Structure formats: C-alpha cells, structure tokens
C-alpha cells in the first residue's frame, strides 16, 4: 500500500529538545536587542528613530509556488518617530521590552495578558485591546523578517489547541527544570492529548506513516474510539474547524521532523476546502507575514471531494448563497486555487452540482463505513489526493 511506504522508520529528533528550546529563545532575544540598538544608535547620531515593517495588505502578498505558501512581499513601510507616532513608538518598545523579559524569565503572555500588563505603563497604557493587538501584530510582522515567530517572542494565543491521538510521543522539556516529559499519545484511552498554546519547544518521536487532520470533533472521536491510528499506524489530529495557530504549527513541525505526509479530511464544501484546508496548507492571505511558520506545504486533500459525492452516493445539502460566493471567489481571486488546475476542476464540479456534503454524511451507509470502507479506499491511492 502506497501510503505505508515508510513503515518502520525510526523516530527523528534533530537534537536535544531542551537545548533546542534555549537556542530558539536566544535567537528571539538577540533580534529584539539588535532592533533596539539600531534605534539607539540613530538617536545618538541625532537622527529620528525608525522601524521597518512589512506592509500587511493583500497587495503585498503572493503565492510562492516553490515554497507552497502565501508569502508576504518585499514592500516595507517605514515608521518614523514623530509627534503622531510617539505613542505607538513608546508602546512598541515597551512591548519589545516585555517580550525580552518573558524570554529571560521563561514565561509567556497571551494578547489579553499583554494588554493588562500595559495598565502599569502609565500614559503609555493601551486604551483598548484593539490598540494592543495592532502593536503586537506590528511586532510580529517586524520580527518575522528575522525569522522569529510570535510564539518565540513568547506571545501565545488564547486559543484552544487541537487534540491529538495515535502513534506519537511528544517530547516536552520543562520550562523550569529542563527535564524532558515524554507524552505517549497512544495512551489516552478515549481521550486525547491537548496541544498547548505554544509548541516551539516540543519535539517528537514517531514511527507513524502519516498524519490525518480531521475537521470535526465527532469524526475524530469516532476514529479515536475505534483506534483507527492503530490499524493504520498514523497520528490523528482534530482541528475542530479552522485549525488554530498552535495546531497548525504543531502539524508543521511534526510533519517536517518526522518527514511523513499530512492528509486532510474535511467537509466537501467551500468552507472546508478554502477556509480549513487552504489555511492549513498555505496559510491565509491576510496573515502572510506569519505563514512561513504556520503553513503545512506537504498537506494533501484526502476528502470529502465533489467526486466522492457521486462515488459514494452521499446525502447532500444545496450550496448556500455564501458557499457559492466563496467558491467563485476562490476560483477568481485565490492564487492557490488558481495555480492548481485540479482544484479548479473540483470546485467547478461542486458548483455545477450545486450541492455540498459533510464528512459525517458517510454515516448514511453505517456509522463505521468511514473506517471500514471510505478511508481504506482512499488511503490505497494517495496519489489521487487533491494537491
């Protein structure tokens, strides 16, 4: 079976997980210091300090075919200190100082935490979360040029991580003691491993053949309860809708380190294809400055495909107005779909059929039809997966 070609491969960890984590911290901390030093030098020379930020607009985004993700373009905006930018400047530097402190104390902060921290900054305190988020996005964009991610800056999302089960051991070095915890994801019974908010410090041991990313919690629970990962020697990841940053980063790191394919199993509708799968694989257009960290270029689309609707005679719902709009938009404006002819054909087929289908629609043929028939069928020819 093609999908199992790498069976028996041993675990790969590039280096000691604890050391790697410290190395990442060092990179981030240096980037901050460097930025501050540049500004300090300018001031000493009597020049106005300035910051260079990539322009975060759709016009400065392109789909990099070779790298396989949406990438931010070269356009930069320069923010010079002036009366009107004084407040933002102060806040940006206070936020950078906070980040450095977090790195040094091996701590982290959510967006919300950072906002409240600023309440101790006197006049420079953020008026509202929106102001705070904007500055954080700026800092993230600024350091993305240096290859430093927001998580490395110790700003973590306040989002639920996805759930994981299957043939995987996660190595998690304790932030304080440095002792590495081994988490065996085959040992959660019907439960699962919940991905933490930041995954930069994690590394992995696995002999799995592939990673299966699943849209709904219900489908994940079914495959998990029936130990699908055991039969198929794989790792199951529940995305629960559009995957969070932590989940995407987790999948990306895991897939890269273990060098195994990633298959997405989502609903057959424009939301599943465009919002979930496309985001997982190449990132999103309006967050192009971070895609390099979060995309999973090796992801492939297992199903449900529009062809499956016919092949498996699935119950469908008519496409809604918003679905049609989304699909037409993908065909017309999305460089990813425009680039892949197979995707264009699939979306056009869906539009001409005028219907969508959910992954759970397979239950029409029996609750475990998906385990006994559909997935085995599919996994026997991964070459046919959509790109």
């Amino acid at each position: 079976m093609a999908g199992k070609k790498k069976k028996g491969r041993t675990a790969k960890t590039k280096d000691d997980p604890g050391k790697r984590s410290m190395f990442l911290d060092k990179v981030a901390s240096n980037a901050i210091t460097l930025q501050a030093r540049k500004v300090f030098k300018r001031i000493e020379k009597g020049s106005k300090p300035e910051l260079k930020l990539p322009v975060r607009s759709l016009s400065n985004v392109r789909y990099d075919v070779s790298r396989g993700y949406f990438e931010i373009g070269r356009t930069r905006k320069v923010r010079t200190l002036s009366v009107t930018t004084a407040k933002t400047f102060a806040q940006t530097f206070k936020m950078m100082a906070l980040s450095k402190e977090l790195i040094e104390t091996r701590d982290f902060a959510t967006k919300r935490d950072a906002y409240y921290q600023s309440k101790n900054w006197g006049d420079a305190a953020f008026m509202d979360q929106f102001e705070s988020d904007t500055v954080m996005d700026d800092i993230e964009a600024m350091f993305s040029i240096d290859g430093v991610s927001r998580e490395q800056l110790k700003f973590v999302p306040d989002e639920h991580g996805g759930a994981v089960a299957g043939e995987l051991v996660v190595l998690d070095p304790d932030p304080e003691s440095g002792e590495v915890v081994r988490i065996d994801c085959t040992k959660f019974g019907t439960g699962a491993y919940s991905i933490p908010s930041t995954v930069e410090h994690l590394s992995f041991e696995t002999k799995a053949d592939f990673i299966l990313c699943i849209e709904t919690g219900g489908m994940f629970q079914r495959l998990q309860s029936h130990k699908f990962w055991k039969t198929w020697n794989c790792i199951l990841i529940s995305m629960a809708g559009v995957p969070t940053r932590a989940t995407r980063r987790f999948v990306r790191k895991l897939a890269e380190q273990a060098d195994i394919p990633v298959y997405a199993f989502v609903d057959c509708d424009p939301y599943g294809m465009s919002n979930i799968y496309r985001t997982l694989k190449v990132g999103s257009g309006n967050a192009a400055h971070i895609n390099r960290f979060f995309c999973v270029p090796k992801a492939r689309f297992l199903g449900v495909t529009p062809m499956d609707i016919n092949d498996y005679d699935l119950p469908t719902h008519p496409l809604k107005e918003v679905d049609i709009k989304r699909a037409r938009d993908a065909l017309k404006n999305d460089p990813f779909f425009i680039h892949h002819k197979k995707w264009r054909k699939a979306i056009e087929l869906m539009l001409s059929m005028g219907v969508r289908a959910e992954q759970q629609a397979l239950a029409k043929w029996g609750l475990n039809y998906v385990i006994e028939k559909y997935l085995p069928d599919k996994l026997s020819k991964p070459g046919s997966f959509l790109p």
Partner: protein
Amino acid sequence: MAVKRRASAADLANRQREISISEFFTKNRHLLGFDSPSKALLTAVKEAVDNSLDACEEAGILPEIKVELDALAEDRYMVTVEDNGPGIIRKQVPKIFGKLLYGSKFHRLKQSRGQQGIGISAAGMYAQLTTGKPVLIITRTGASREPHQLEVAIDTKRNAPSVLKDKEIEWDKKHGTRVTMELEAVYRKGQHSVDEYMVQTAMANPHARIEYRTPKGDEVTYERSTEELPVEAREIKPHPYGVELGILARMLRDSKSRTVLAALKSDFSRVSDNVGRSILKEAGIPEKRSPRHVASREVESLFRAIPKVKIMAPPTNCLSPIGEDAILSGMKKLVPADWYVARTRPPSVYRGNPFQVEVGLAYGGALESDGLARVIRYANRVPLLYQAGGCGITKAVLTTSWRGYGLQQARGALPSGPLVIFVHIASVWVPFTSESKEAIAHYPELLKDVRLALQECGRKLSAHIRRGKREADEHRKRTYIAKYLPYVGDALQEILSLSPKKRDQVVEQLTNMLERSRKM
C-alpha cells in the same frame, strides 16, 4: 342598443349652472389649508400676517405687528392681527375680505408673500362657515383720515362681499389695519404650531417688530434686529423665454400696440428693437403687422422663434432677498448655535421667472448634537410648516452629500448633528404644490440652485469643523511629546540595560528632535 331614456340633452342643459369660486372652495377647503381645526388656526394667522407685512413693505413702513389669540371655547378661537401699515381705503375693504380671487398681486411679476388673492378672504370664509361670524376690520389710512370699522361677510353663491356694518370710530393708531376673525380652531404646540410660525417669521423678517400673545396669555415680543427695510421689489414684465404658446396668443390679441414689433417690445422684458426684429425675422412675420392680425399658425411660428434668439435674462430687481447679514442676525437672535454662515445666491430663472435662493446654516453651541439637522423652509419670507416631506427644499437638502462636509448622513436621510438649515426661495412666482402654499414643487432649476447654495455653505461648515479638529489636534500633539517619549527611553533602557543617565539623554534628544521638526 338598449336605450332607456332618463334625461334628454335638453334636460341636461337645464341643469347646467355656473359655480362660484367661493362655493368651490367651501366644499374643498382642505385645499386652502383649512383641513383641520389646528391647521385652520395657523392658516388664518399666517394669511393675515403675510398681508400685513406685504402692505407695510409696499408702503415703506417698518412693520409693527400684533398677533393675539383668544380661546372662546375649546374649539373656538378669536384671531386678531393688527399692523401699522398704510391701511385700506374704505371702498376696497369689502372686496379684499369678502371675495376670493381678488387682489393686487396675482397679475404682477414681483416678489410678494401673497400671490393669488385667496388667502385672507378664504380665512374669513372659513370663519363664517364654522361660526357664522363675519370678519371685523378696523382700518385707517392716515392721521388725517377717520378710522373705519367694518363687518364683512361673503356671499359664497356670488363670490361677493356683503357689508353688515360700516361706521367711523375712534382709534389711536395713525394708520394701520386690524383684522379680527372668530373661527373653529384648536391651539397646539409643536412643529406645526402658531408659536413656531411666529419664531420662524421673526427670523426671516428681522426688520419687523412682532408682538404675539398666546391663548394662555403669554406675551412674546420679537424686537427688530435691523432698522432697514428690505429693498423694494419692482414689478417686471414677463420674459419671452417663459411665455407659453397660449399666453403669447392672448397677449398679442390683447395688445394695445400698433405693430407686432412694438407689442413685443412693450409687453415683454428684455426685448430690444434688435431682439424683437430677430424674433420676427426668424418667425417670418412682418414687423409692422398689427398684433391683433397675427394668425394662429403665425403665433406658433413666433413661439418657436423665441428660443432661437439670444435674449438677456430678465431683470432681477423684482426680487427682494433677505440678504446674508439679515439672515445671520435673525439666526443669531433665535438659534442658539455658536457658528453661523449665510449665502444669498445670484438670481436665476426658471420658465422665465426670476428667483433667488438663500441659505443659512447654524452649527454647534446649544443645538442638540444627537438628532437630525432641522430644516427651516421659506418661500418669499413666509415659513413653510407643513408637508416638509413633499417639498423641493427638503429634497435638495436630502440629495446634498453632507458627508463631504464632515457630517454624518444616513442614506436618504437628513444629515445629523447640531445643525439648523435655513432655506429661503424668493421668486415672482413660487410654484407651490397646492393653494395652501405648504410645499414647493420639484422644479430642477430651483433644486439645483438650492443645492449650490447648500454646498457653498457646506464647504464653509466643513472648514469650520476641520479647524476645530485641527486645534484639538495641535493641543493633543504638544502633550504627546511630554507624555510618551519617556516610555521610549524606559523601554530602551530595559532592553539595552542603559544607565539612568543614558536613558534621560535619549529622552531629551528625542524631545528636542520632535520640537524642532514641529517648528519647521
């Protein structure tokens, strides 16, 4: 064909009768603004005050008007309006108050409040219809003349006055007129009230002094804010561009001139010898032909020739705008804003009728800043209180894009903010949508000029609003420097572990840098 003879042509003919205009308007009195008792009160006051103001101005007298309302019963009021005008000579009194479609203003091309010779007699007719009481008039035309007191009723069948009483009396006024009517009416407060009419009238007539006593006995006096009478409007002749085929034919037929050329020159404005000849040449009619011998087909040629000849716009001394200063002083007295602007447009022409648009804006101050702007509409200095929705002025305000001037405006709505919009249209002939003179028809030429005036004022408003914002900005920026730069220093200190001295240097350098660049 089934014919059941009921009435022959002769039977029908026997029933044909002439209908008097008074009878007609008695049945259709809602057309004149007497549809409800509360509106009737306003209409009666309005017609009397309009006449008083017109009379004073024509006579060159600074108006002093007294308006008194007395409640006789819940639905019966006595309305008294007294002026210091030139008075009315005895002989004219009955017709003015007891005959519909009688007046001095209908046939003239000249701006005035009254137009059709219906208003005051219709008010009297309504009074008589609802209370049976005649109109009581006291009038005196000069210190050397005796004051007269008359009671006038209307014989609606004949549309003719009948004088019930007529005597000389004592009156301490040297000249003026006092009209008293008793009518079925209701006194209300609010947007459509007599109170509101008095305020708005005072605003557009800052040369008038008005005393007003409400039925509750409250007395309000609007002192004049200018001692200047408005420029007197002159009567003009019709302009050829505005004439219609049928009117042209009648004018030629009725002309007293000997030649058609002379007729054109004497009966129209702006027709010089040259212009007259060009028109006639274009029409192929000999100049010397008697105007009464122009055949009907030739009249049509003449009519079609007119637009082909270039003719000067009509004279505009028939108009008497309020003027920007007077609008400003009126608004300042009565609208509690803190910024005002006014604009009087140059006169324009629609259908050969000269007209002129004036706009005033009052902004800010104690005006309510939450709601929609208030629009105050005037035609020939008379406030329009009803039918705002159907009025061309409202339309022009709605279709002006106020967002461009820094105001909020929802789609199809009035702008919102602390704003009062004053719009005055002065014309020799204001095209009302009904005889009750409540709303102005949507003539594109009128709407366009109103919009232009609104835009001129809007641009000034926009500058004012921006200036306010700029000043606030300036202040904010100055405080910014002191407020935020220390935190840049703090943060650099934290990241680069600077000494406190180094940090303070950085802050000082930054401060100097920014202060310097601001002064350049």
